[in-house]
């Protein structure tokens, strides 16, 4: 099962590597990982997408909580939440492909944020699955580069992760 785990941790040198090291040392997998400071700069919010059995996820949560730098851990996917991921896609855009790519970007509610004679950079924010379908919708031969931020997510309504 895929899980999105949100973590509040001290914004200190080495805190991220403690989290990443925990996953590698115990053989848990990381599908995506995003981290940045919150509105309180002494805190970082980290989102990890991982997968495993219930027992594995329980251990991951407990082991994360055990890290001294970790303040709170929540499994977002346990309840209602929204998730988004940002992707930048550089494509070869020449001839009739230019129109087609523009149209596809519109359909997926993406934006073209850089244009040259031969390339576009398309920005797209959506769920990971939707980003995947966008990539599939484009002729693979036209894709020059893709960059994805990894998932960040937040609970719906009054579900709040804060100290």
């Amino acid at each position: 099962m895929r899980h999105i785990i949100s973590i509040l941790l001290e914004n200190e040198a080495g805190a991220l590597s403690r989290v990443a090291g925990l996953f590698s040392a115990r053989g848990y997998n990381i599908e995506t990982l995003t981290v940045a400071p919150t509105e309180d700069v002494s805190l970082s919010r980290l989102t990890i997408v991982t997968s495993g059995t219930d027992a594995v996820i329980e251990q991951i949560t407990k082991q994360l909580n055990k890290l001294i730098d970790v303040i709170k851990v929540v499994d977002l996917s346990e309840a209602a939440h929204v998730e988004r991921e940002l992707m930048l896609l550089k494509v070869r855009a020449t001839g009739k492909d230019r129109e087609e790519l523009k149209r596809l970007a519109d359909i997926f509610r993406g934006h073209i944020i850089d244009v040259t004679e031969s390339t576009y950079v398309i920005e797209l924010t959506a769920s990971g699955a939707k980003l995947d379908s966008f990539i599939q919708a484009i002729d693979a031969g036209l894709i020059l580069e893709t960059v994805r931020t990894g998932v960040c997510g937040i609970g719906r309504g009054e579900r709040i992760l804060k100290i």
Partner: protein
Amino acid sequence: MTMMTGAEIVIRCLQEEKVEYVFGYPGGAVLHLYDALFKQDLVKHILVRHEQAAVHAADGLARSTHKVGVALVTSGPGATNAVTGIATAYMDSIPLVIISGQVPTEYIGQDAFQECDTVGITRPCVKHNFLVKDVHDLAVTIKKAFFIANSGRPGPVVIDIPKDITAAKCRFEYPETIQLRSYNPVVKGHLGQIKKALHLLLEAKRPMVYTGGGVILSNGAEQLTKLVRRLGFPITNTLMGLGAYPASDQQFLGMPGMHGTVEANLAMQNCDVLLAIGARFDDRVIGNPDNFSSIPRKIIHIDIDPSSISKRVKVDVPIVGNVPDVLDEMLKLLDAGSAGPDAAVLADWWKQIDEWRAKQCMKYRKKKSIIMPQYVIEKLYEVTEGKAIVTSDVGQHQMWAAQYYKFDQPRRWLNSGGLGTMGVGLPYAMGAALANPGTPIACVTGEGSIQMCIQELSTAKQFRLPIKIINLNNRYLGMVRQWQEMFYGSRYSESYMDSLPDFVKLAEAYGHVGIRVERPEDVEGALKKAFVDHKDDLVFIDFITDQKANVFPMVAAGKGLADMLLTEDL
């Protein structure tokens, strides 16, 4: 307030923490610290001969006292040499503070002389670590380190201090208390859960108590003994938990696990309610977890570390909390209520256990011509009247010491249970000897293990540590040889030790007393000579023992607990 250098601040903090002994080895990056040490005499420095031993010795001190052990090492190789000691302490949850020197801040990352990423290297084997980048953070970091090391589930904490920070100056202020928003270990157990557990225990037909190192570390032995006596249940202590309940008591079934007794293992396997306290269902204790879980039983698990609960075996009643607090609560509830265990039901269970006991699985055949290693431990127990602090290394001798020395008190048995580090025995004995003057200290070891930290004979001489080294010398890496005999068609690949030193002469060369014992009838006399005549000396007794002796019972790796191999001697 006067200005102090970083080095002076470090030493002052150690004084504030009432640290009596620091085990260490000087080097370039810690010269300021050693200079500050030199200018005071409250904190005594014990100069070891290898940094690994500094950490082990601090660890031995901590294990034998409940104090935080402190080690001081230099940057680069000093820190990397300390890693084995740190990992050893981490696996057994021992509270340590390790201070390592680091190259000056501006050199970090430039491959400077004796530079290594100490914080990075130690990260997976510490409870927490710090790199101090500002002298103003130094005192508070040290306060945090001591607090983290010895609270919750204890563990080693590394503080890496660049050389320039030890030279920089600032005002000294030591915080009296410390609060960490991200670290608040639970102490009190959940009352509802405790009641639920008690209910299960009182209803049990075949109850069993299984306790580990957590009871020793939390100083919960007294409460445990009270509770178990009160309930009249059988109890087993793991290798790390020996001494939590008096081993000479009738309710004690011996150690469980790979080399546990028949009665302890079968009671673990066949009980209907298992009370696990400060233990972690380690592979060496329960064998194959699937086999263990295939038998229906209710499990109650008390532990301060939530991640230890339901890690290897699913638990029915988890209780997160500090062991003595939870047990106090249980005793209080027992006192308040009228219910007790059903004596008749319990008598049936004990009848079954006594049948298992009647197998006398620990019996071994004594020989006239050659010393049996088990016999040495039995005699050691007699001669020291069960009052010694016994340290051990890792291997057959460790198991025999655990099986045949009856520990009636906690903190008397020091060994590396988790990491299984050969070489800890002598440095553990050093730490224990310093912290427990007047208590007899025996280091039970083998000719393989003792050579892993043999250089510490020199430290022991310098600080006049009256350790008795009980060397069970069978000229083999015995445990390896045993596995090779049993599982590898007796192909003794690299397990025979040729060209051993003359240990008597070696001990003498270091200025100690050496004795060689080759006949069973001389065992007791030699031990008396060591513990009585040479009470204040380090004595190295080299017992030449049976090469073929194996440790039994044995549950082979990956097998279920009931699948025990027993000695063929009987």
